[in-house]
């Protein structure tokens, strides 16, 4: 479904991503793991059209989408749930969902059946009229996911969905991603939380300093000596105290 070839991205002379290639097939959960600053978010932002790449190709179903503006990429069925959630605190929960569904539906907003939401996000369904700023961290992440799904994407780009969440909430979010995949959604997941991510994903890419250093089936990566010793060991159990980047 998604084919990224030779992606280069730099910020003011600093090379963030240097020749990254990766593939995502329909129905897969593919993860990009790597330390902070490895260039994971830059790759997602390039795919989503937030910041065009300097060089390289991004193909969606064989068609080039690299360099298209974000709204055109969303129109092709790709939705990113950004790092730090970026929910609209001054808008109600319902209005946040409406923003996610911006490219669907008519000019006048009509009341919508929320039974589907209630099944996947029961905590949100009871708080539709609350301002989103009043939600807890876990609820805010659920809202960010629900809002992204409102666009009915074929490919969901998830940027650090476990950021700032307790291990228990992280497990809930990951379980939700698994259920979404089972319903036919394709997911490209960026995470620092290596062990849980690889337990969830079908395949994984390890990104270090803007380069893919390792890739393969998630189960293989989990048992890889090099990954475990150099990187995984540092990261296990760490995420609970991390706060969103400012």
């Amino acid at each position, binding site marked *: 479904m998604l084919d990224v070839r030779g992606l280069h991205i730099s910020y003011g002379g600093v090379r963030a991503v240097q020749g990254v290639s990766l593939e995502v097939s329909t129905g897969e959960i593919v993860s990009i793991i790597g330390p902070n600053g490895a260039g994971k978010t830059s790759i997602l932002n390039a795919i*989503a059209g*937030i910041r065009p790449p300097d060089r390289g190709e991004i193909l969606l179903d064989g068609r080039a989408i690299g360099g298209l*503006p*974000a*709204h055109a*990429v*969303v*129109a092709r069925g790709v*939705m*990113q749930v*950004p790092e*730090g*959630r*970026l*929910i*609209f*605190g*001054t*808008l109600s929960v319902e*209005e946040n969902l*409406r*923003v*996610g569904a*911006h*490219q669907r*539906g*008519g*000019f*006048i*907003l009509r009341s919508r059946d929320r039974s589907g939401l209630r099944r996947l996000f029961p905590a949100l369904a009871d708080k539709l009229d609350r301002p989103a*700023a009043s939600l807890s961290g876990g609820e805010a992440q659920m809202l960010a996911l629900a*809002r992204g799904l409102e*666009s009915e994407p074929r490919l969901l780009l998830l940027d650090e969905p476990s950021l700032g969440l307790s291990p228990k909430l992280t497990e809930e979010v990951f379980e939700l991603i698994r259920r979404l995949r089972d319903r036919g959604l394709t997911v490209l997941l960026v995470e620092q939380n290596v062990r849980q991510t690889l337990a969830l994903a079908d395949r994984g890419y390890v990104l270090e300093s803007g380069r893919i250093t390792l890739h393969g089936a998630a189960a293989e990566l989990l048992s890889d000596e090099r990954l475990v010793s150099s990187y995984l060991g540092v990261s296990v159990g760490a995420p609970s105290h991390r706060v969103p980047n*400012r």
Partner: protein
Amino acid sequence: MIDFIQNTVDGVMFGSSYALLAIGFTIVFGVMRRINLAFGASIMLGAYVGTWLHVHYQVPVLVVALTTIAGTVLAGIYIERLCFHAVRRDAALASMVSSFVIWMQLEEASIHLLPERTYAFPGLFAAGAYELGPFLFRAEQTTMLVVAAVMVGVLHLLLHRTRFGVALRAISENPLAAAYMGINAAWVVLCAFALVSMVGGIAGYAILATDEQITPFFGLWATFKGLIAMMLGGMGSLPGAIVGGLLLGVVEANALWYLGTEYRDLSAFLLLFAMLVLRPGGLMGQRILGREELAFRRV
């Protein structure tokens, strides 16, 4: 006491037109974090085109009203393309200066269109007055109040019950998050400019019909009143623009009655000065300040 109440009623009535002008500034500021100084001049250009048609071709009054509104919308789109769309998002000062330049340009254009200084401006309804107990109401001012109330209601529905409105509010809270959601901000902002220009054009027509004349100072006047009303209420706040406009109207009406004509504008400036010193965020500013912090935290 009766004088005071009469003044307050009058103040609320023409204050409602200040509120509409302030809405034009506050929506643009809320979305772009920039001030469109050329707003008053764009209304003036629209009104001048309408007057020009009336003077030279004796078109019906309704055509003058519609031309005023359409001309303001076109001028608003012109301003958006030149001063806001073309200028980079982080260069707020550049777009403010360029909107000042466009102000001068629109004013020049208006004066070239109608080179004499003052023209009669035709109203849709005959001027008149009616009494209610000890109070006197001017018909055209009552019309203005009704028009303002209807437009505030329509704007509220637009912002809360339409896809466009929710998208606009999303952009004004966090442009980056709105981009992730697939909102084409350039298009939404252009529509927002057209919308506030329409509101401005309607307000401008109602004000000029009440004054029954138009002069080249109208652009300056409209920008001043709108800006002051917005600052009083709190920048970027829609309820603030309404409260600020009405407050300005009431203070001016009482200054006019108790102190004399020359104190009308002076009292407005004094009021603004006092507000900026005592409560820099404006009456509804507290919430805006909170929102600003919220936005920064989330970006």
